[in-house]
């Protein structure tokens, strides 16, 4: 079997803002293999979501390359791709077709996992944000990606659904890679085996000492002192 990987090399990205060009990412390099569960830490605007979109390929870097031989999900938790006028079921079918998955199988899985019941037949614009999150997360579980990108998914929804998501991720972590952003620090600590901290040093800091890095990051946030975990 081919070795599966995502290789990010020297990726930089600059956005044009009203105040001029704003460098968001500077020379980021990292590799994701099927055993990796990567957590991305950083304050708002540090480039977490941008990095996630680069990994997923929905945005192109200004310089550097991203190579991948894995199938990668969209950033789960971002539900803008759901067409508001279409029903949950129609949206599900669209996603299944785009990824070449078995349409009926995906619909069945989503109905089961999302617990949306008859709401699945209603247009997505009538959904609450919690319901959209349930649909989006169920979809990402139904289509088998080699690597899941997860952005803030457990920030919404009720406690029961949050637990369901985390349980699903835990099961998943045995055989598939994922990247977590904006997740609770506690969850990142528990689920990830690698973290990348953005915005504390000139370059991103990558470490496999997850617990120590989170502690150091928390200290940087509260006391303003960053010490690289040893």
């Amino acid at each position, binding site marked *: 079997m081919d070795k599966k990987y995502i290789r990010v090399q020297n990726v930089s990205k600059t*956005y044009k803002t009203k105040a001029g060009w704003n460098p968001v990412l500077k020379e980021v390099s990292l590799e994701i293999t099927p055993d990796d569960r990567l957590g991305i830490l950083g304050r708002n605007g540090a480039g977490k*979501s*941008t990095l996630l*979109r680069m990994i*997923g*390929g*929905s*945005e*192109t*870097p*200004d310089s550097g390359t991203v190579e*991948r*031989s*894995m*199938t*990668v*999900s*969209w*950033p789960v938790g*971002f539900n*803008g*791709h759901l*067409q508001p*006028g*279409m029903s949950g079921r*129609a949206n599900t079918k*669209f*996603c299944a*077709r*785009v*990824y*070449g998955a078995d349409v009926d199988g995906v619909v069945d899985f989503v109905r089961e996992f999302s617990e949306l019941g008859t709401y699945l037949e209603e*247009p997505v614009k009538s959904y609450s944000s919690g319901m959209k999150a349930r649909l989006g997360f169920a979809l990402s579980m139904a289509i088998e990606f080699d690597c899941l990108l997860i952005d803030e998914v457990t920030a919404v929804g009720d406690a029961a659904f949050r637990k369901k998501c985390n349980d699903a991720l835990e099961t998943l972590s045995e055989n598939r890679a994922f990247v977590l952003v904006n997740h609770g620090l506690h969850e990142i600590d528990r689920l990830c085996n690698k973290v990348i901290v953005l915005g504390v040093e000139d370059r991103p800091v990558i470490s496999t000492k997850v617990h120590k890095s989170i502690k150091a990051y928390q200290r940087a946030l509260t006391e303003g002192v960053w010490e690289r975990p040893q």
Partner: protein
Amino acid sequence: MTGSFSSRCATSLRVIHALILREISARYAESRAGYLWAILTPIISILTLYFVFALIRQRETEIPLLAFLVTGWFTFGFYQSMVSMIANSEAANKALLMHQNVTRLDVIASRGLLEVLTTALFLCVGGVLAMMVEEASLPDDPLLTALSFFSAGFVGLSVGVLVCAIMTYFPVAMNFINPINRLGFFISGVLFTTSALPSWTYDYVKWNPILHSIEGMRQGWFETYQSPVLDIAYPYTVGLPILMIGLFLERRTRRGIRIG
């Protein structure tokens, strides 16, 4: 991107198929009357023009009036809707580009294909209507008719791709295209045939590619009409370089797409 060329083509075809189904249900999901309304709107406009023209116009040609309006209206409409559909393809489907498999070119291709199917269907409905009302004939030269009809769509596609790429960095580009297209409606021969113009104007009006598309439609459809300026290769000759520049810029502006 992953995979060989052929597997990427297969992915693209699958994605385009999914996008077309999605576009149809998104456009007409609100009500089932949506389909009917989409075809009724141009038909009502054409019929209104038909009655106004029938009252005021001196008949200077042998062309049946309703078929004359149908050929002009839908050919120009093909160009115009193609431009706006393609130019807006990124803006309208930005969120879908979050899917690794979906590229901007897939979106452009699916919208272009859907527009061809829709407008061709509309033209057929209009043609049948004209035949019922005026006992007009089938196209006299089907090849020229088809070539002319598609030339309008082709120019629209080319301009659309170019504007789409420019809009990534300059979203105001659409504001320049809209007034040009509105003006185009009056100077492209929707409401006149070139033969009705004074002959000194030929040297000027023949620069307009859409005029050739519409002239070609009429010469191809009506046995009795012979256009004084028609060169059906012209719209393709104009469209092709525009399309090439558009596709080049489409590649160059991809990194400017901002989704979040």
